[in-house]
């Protein structure tokens, strides 16, 4: 991969302009002035859309960078564009300047040598990042190597309506029992939706004999290791919403189903999502969140810059702004986004730190202590195979 990248750099050597150098930040700022950054980011949630619009206003005012949010229904769309442009020989002036990315999509681009960088650890605000405590340098067990810059920490939580569900089930077994006693009240987003696959991984963590095995590549013992998960699904699926014959197509769709009274439990990767949704009247006031007794998976959201991006300097300016205390604070504000910060509180200055401390997390958001330490994401190969198998067994069951 490395030499593919240097080959790409060589190809550029003759071009009129050189790649922006993230270590020379003043030059980056200068080059970014007047650039338009097409940020390809999932556009299915109004809260994130609003946040990105706010980022756009701020980088316009401070750095003269125009930010265009290209709203995706699936991050894979942006990845496929970059791959396709590469195949077509569009090695500069590409359509995608920045992608909200993580996991398999990141790995696909990184392995193909289609990312610009490394740049993440050269960004001025990297100094503030909690690189030891938060999963910001490893993405689905693959080292990020500075090819993507984190901007939000995420952890699996479950959202429920405390009015209809007094004692929410806090393990895979409890979920199965509860679903059996209350058929039709539980569902998860249909894989390949990332949240649906995340739920399957979470259940795998719960049911697998040796969770440490999941940190390695899925190999010949894949069938044995995942057998308990399929048994669990075999038992639970008929008791699910619509008898498991239909699934919500995305995470936020589950919130609508809770609000409509159709289901009682939803999975989320954003601890603050429930509080934000209550504020937006998308969930009842009685909605709350919990984590499983054995803990839940956590990961980070990143932004990456394709190798052929048209506005690399502008994209780095946006990535850096996303790591600013101002943007992180806003992202963590419950009724705005409620995303966990990736900054280290000890590295912030007094005023910024006080602002974070003063943040009311909201009625439905768990405190860091209640969230506990996040479990590491399994190796991406598990996700790929589970997703495929699930689709074959349940995705076309009708």
């Amino acid at each position, binding site marked *: 991969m490395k030499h593919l990248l240097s080959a790409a750099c060589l190809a550029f050597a003759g071009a009129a302009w050189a790649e922006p150098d993230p270590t020379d930040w003043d030059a980056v700022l200068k080059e970014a002035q007047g650039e338009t950054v097409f940020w390809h980011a999932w556009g299915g949630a109004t809260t994130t859309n609003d946040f990105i619009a706010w980022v756009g206003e701020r980088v316009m005012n401070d750095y003269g960078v125009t930010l265009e949010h290209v709203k995706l229904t699936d991050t*894979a769309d942006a990845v496929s564009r970059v*791959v396709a442009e590469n*195949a077509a020989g569009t090695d500069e002036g590409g359509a995608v300047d920045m992608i909200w990315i993580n996991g398999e999509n990141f790995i696909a681009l990184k392995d193909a040598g289609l990312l610009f960088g490394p740049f993440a650890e050269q960004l001025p605000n990297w100094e503030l990042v909690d690189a030891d405590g938060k999963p910001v340098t490893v993405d689905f067990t693959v080292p990020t190597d500075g090819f993507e810059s984190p901007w939000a920490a995420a952890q699996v939580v479950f959202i429920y309506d405390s009015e209809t569900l007094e004692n929410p089930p806090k393990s895979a077994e409890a979920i199965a029992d509860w679903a059996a006693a209350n058929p039709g009240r539980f569902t998860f987003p249909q894989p390949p939706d990332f949240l649906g696959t995340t739920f399957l991984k979470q259940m795998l963590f719960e049911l697998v004999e040796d969770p440490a095995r999941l940190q390695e590549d899925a190999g010949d013992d894949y069938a044995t290791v995942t057998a308990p998960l399929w048994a669990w699904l075999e038992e639970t699926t008929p008791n699910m919403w619509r008898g498991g014959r239909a699934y919500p197509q995305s995470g*936020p769709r589950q919130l609508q189903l809770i609000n*409509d*009274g159709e289901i009682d439990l939803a999975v989320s990767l954003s601890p603050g999502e429930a509080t934000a949704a209550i504020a937006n*009247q*998308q969930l009842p006031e009685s909605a709350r969140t919990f984590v499983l007794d054995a803990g839940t998976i956590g990961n980070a959201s990143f932004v990456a810059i394709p190798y052929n991006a048209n506005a690399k300097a502008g994209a780095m300016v946006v990535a850096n702004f996303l790591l600013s205390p101002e943007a992180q604070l806003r992202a963590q504000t419950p009724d705005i986004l409620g995303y966990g910060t990736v900054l280290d509180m000890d590295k912030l200055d007094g005023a910024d730190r006080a602002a974070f401390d003063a943040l009311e997390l909201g009625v439905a958001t768990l405190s860091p202590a209640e969230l506990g330490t996040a479990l590491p994401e399994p190796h991406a190969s598990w996700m790929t195979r589970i997703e495929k198998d699930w*689709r074959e067994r349940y995705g076309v069951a009708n």
Partner: protein
Amino acid sequence: MSSERAVDAQSSRLSLVPALTIAVLIGPIAAGLTGTVLPAFGLLKVGGGGALSLAPWSQMADEPGIARAAWLSVKTGMISAIGALVGCLLLIAGWHGTRAFAALERLLSPLLSVPHAAAALGLAFLVAPSGWAARLTSPWLTGWERPPDLLIVGDPGGWALIAGLMAKELPFLMLMSLAALPQINSRERMQVALSLGYGRMRGWVLTVLPALYAQLRLPIYAVLAYAMSNVDVATVLGPTAPPTLSLIVLRWMTDPDLALRAPAAAAALLQLALVLGAIGLWRGGEVVAARAAQWAVETGQRGHAMTEALARGLGLSIAALAGVSILAGLASQLIWSLAGRWRFPEALPSSFGLRSWDRHGPPALDVTLATLGLAALAALIALFCVLGCLEAEHRRGRNLGRLGLLLLYLPLLLPQITFLPGLQILLLRVGAAQGFWPVLMTHIVFVLPYMFLALAGPFRAWDRRYATVAAGLGSGREAVLWKLRLPMLLAPILTAFAVGMAVSVGQYLPTLLAGGGRLVTLTTEALALSSGGDRRAIGVWTLALTLAAWVPFALALVLPRVIYRHRSGMRGG
């Protein structure tokens, strides 16, 4: 001498327009088909290279659920097309000329111009177990304190999709029928039938229908092709496990793994084969129906009052249900856009406010303007082509032949999902920029036929004696066109323009695939939001989408009245 030459030059330039129009229509389709056929047989790979192989087909065949997906496409397409046609025919047979019909007729244009995505999103909320219909009747009638666990929207059998397609295609067939009825002397035919003692329905079916059907054939095939291969309605209302074939093609087309473009191309061709097969089957059905009608005539039966009343009632119910469900769906979107908290089973939100409009209104306005700009440009170019073609055929004194009509209908008969992926593959392969221009080109492909159909009737019906009089007064052909004909046809031209804009506003797949995600329109935005399920946001965007399609129609109604406020004879066109 010199003026004659000038006239010749103008005429020859005009005669270029039909050729140009064919190029504009057929160019993208031919390119797209090439881009689909070649990769389906391994001859062209996005990554370069390629050799003849059937691997894409076996790769497609290995996809779990592919057979069922193909069957779902055939089933939902066939049943919804039959349903829309039967509803349309029963309504016209039973009610044409009555007051109830006149009332429905007034709803026709607004219903027709509601974009498919907007209608589907409205319908989805209306019929869901926790939807508006259930809320209005719960718990007092149904006893539901919680929504029942019923699979209605996205049911595996595709019935919600069928209902949505029927509701949206019925108005289109109605409009095409109403345009055709005056050409076939339907009133005279009915008078003969009635005087021979036939019942209204039976008489209509045996005397008017055969002539009407001949005129409706191509629109019906277009409906069938659309219903079998659409993406926008199926995304919202269709089954998901597995979805219809077109959605599998779309999923492969947007996958990061470029190798999946090959099975996508194969599946796109399978879709085409299914559509062609279905049209063939339909053609067979026509022959059987004609035999049955022949037999019915020979029995000499005049029709039973009972079946007559039943058929009339059925026709009115289907049409009214279609109209009411689309309008009620839109009304529910309006309410959601103004809703505060709204939980099941409340019939209405517990509070109202402008919050959602404050939040989503400004970006929706930006996208609305961009959408309308694109639509206006597409309609303008198409209008130039259509007027040029019509004027050329007027001067030649010959109307569009069968082949011309078929060419015109080609974009409507070919499934979009068959040639648009190919266009994308081709654009990618040659490294052409995706974005505004490819989108504009593909929009014109779909806008132009509808505008031609909308304008051809009034244009051809224009009384040639005006031209004769004007020529007698010394006006040349150009003067007749610009000073007489076009001003007199202002109203139908504006209506055709509005039709064109509405078609452009509603395009989803061309915008998505040719635009490469860079071009955001109201339709792509509304459908992107539909996966998220924020009903307030969906409400705002769906209404913006519907209004964008309606505003041009409103202008087309109002403008002639304003411009010709002192000349009442010019207002109606």
